[in-house]
């Protein structure tokens, strides 16, 4: 079982692209998708399929990453399908609601948009190691430093947060087991009981994370951490392939844009 959009180590062109380009591309594509008409939509879908093929992420994995959102897709589709006025396919199909060609089209369209956004984001995270993702974000935010925004510190905070997620999950499990060992139950009971149970988990968790935070801060200081500039194991440097990809993206998006007129 894989988590949504979990990084899949690989060596494809997409894997090797500069994370900054990937992030910016995903953002631009998403904006385009929201305003796309039918032709642009086809182009964008084609583009996305090419990217997926190049990334060597199997289509099965892409579909798996869509699965958690299935309920939203169905909901979005049916809302438009059932509540859009237009040329009816069938009158009073579902208890007085008529389904229309326009509704079908709108439903498909909205669902496609949403699927595209999710696919774009998951291809990004599947082909980019979390640490590269963070240095990419830091790289994109870097110009904001002139406004006094501490981008280096933000990057450290993000990576610390990601680093400690599994640790916190383990901690929750440990606290839960410790309470179960003393007769606590977590499965049974009514809502009120369940809320109380969660409270009894949260308190020790919060306390222990404060202790942890303090120790971590001391350890970071001991390893010479100070706010402000620092360097990284992998420096982001644009290769010629990255520039080529950038130009390609710009040309593609300009093409899609021109198609509108």
């Amino acid at each position, binding site marked *: 079982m894989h988590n949504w959009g979990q990084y899949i180590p690989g060596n494809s062109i997409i894997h090797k692209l500069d994370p900054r380009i990937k992030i910016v591309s995903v953002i631009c594509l998403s904006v385009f998708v929201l305003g796309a008409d039918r032709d642009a939509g086809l182009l964008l879908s084609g583009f996305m399929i090419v990217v997926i093929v190049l990334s060597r992420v199997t289509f099965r994995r892409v579909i798996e990453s869509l699965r958690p959102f299935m309920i939203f897709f169905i909901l979005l589709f049916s809302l438009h399908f059932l509540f859009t006025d237009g040329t009816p396919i069938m009158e009073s199909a579902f208890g007085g609601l008529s389904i229309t060609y326009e509704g079908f089209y709108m439903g498909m369209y909205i669902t496609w948009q949403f699927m595209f956004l999710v696919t774009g984001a998951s291809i990004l995270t599947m082909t980019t190691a979390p640490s590269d993702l963070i240095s990419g974000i830091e790289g994109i935010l870097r110009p904001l430093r002139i406004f006094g925004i501490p981008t280096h510190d933000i990057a450290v905070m993000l990576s610390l947060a990601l680093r400690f997620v599994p640790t916190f999950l383990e901690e929750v499990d440990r606290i839960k087991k410790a309470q179960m060992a003393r007769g606590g139950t977590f499965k049974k009971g009514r809502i009120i009981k369940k809320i109380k149970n969660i409270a009894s988990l949260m308190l020790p968790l919060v306390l222990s994370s404060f202790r942890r935070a303090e120790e971590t801060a001391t350890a970071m200081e*001991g390893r010479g951490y100070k706010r402000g500039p*620092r360097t990284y194991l992998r420096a982001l440097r644009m290769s010629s392939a990255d520039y080529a990809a950038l130009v390609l993206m710009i040309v593609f998006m300009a093409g899609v844009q021109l198609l509108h007129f």
Partner: protein
Amino acid sequence: MIKVEDVTFRYTRSDEPVLNRINMTIDRGEYVGIVGPNGCGKTTLVHHLNALLYPTGGRVSVDGMNTDDESSVEEIRRRVGMVFQNPDNQIVGMTVEEDVAFGPGNLELPSREIRRRVDESLAAVGLKNHATRLPHTLSGGEKRLVSIAGVLAMEPQYIIFDEPTSYLDPSGRDRVLSIIRGINEQGIAIIHITHNMDEIVDASTIVVMDEGRILFTGSPKEVFGRVERMKSLKLDIPVATDLAWRLKQRGEDIRTDILTIDEACVEILGRLKNPPVS
């Protein structure tokens, strides 16, 4: 050289001092063991050595730089590395190699140099093939090794180990201890806090602390030779020393300056083969 001169430390002015007029020096390449009951101030003392805490009275200097001097704190922390008790909270990188790169990154070294140091440090602790693993998938022993590699990547002159073998199984403990010894052989001074005396029998100096004071200092033979004093402090002595001492208590005329099981074997076997003429 690290010099601790007349250091007193209290958390607030009214508190009892946690450290009380401590004096000690640590030379380059030395191996110092620090022992004492829980709460005696061992950890507080070593936190003074790399400017994580500042003395309330007295002064601490590292290679001539005073830890009070704001401008030398960075260099002091580079020279004096610290491996904390709980490796879980000390690993900050999302992968093993990124954690090791954290310190050199703080020194603002170029990426090539960081890469070199990361590879060397991971090789030194035998984790070369685990560079891209995620911290939470490591065993307790491996986490400890990662935290050691993270300190080595700073290329320090002194490394403080605060109970480096706690929570480890015997094989993990042996691995960590042999790495510490290897680091010392490269000329890096070791300051090793422990409760297990067998770990520091080859230290150059042992410091015994109680209630914020240094009670006595000496070579392992000198310190563990004071068996009764150690026992009155509720401190352990090496198993072999204890054995020799108990045999002596029972009237056997045996050397008691024995520190390791090997030495004990030699001494006892010698006696079994040629019993001393009484």
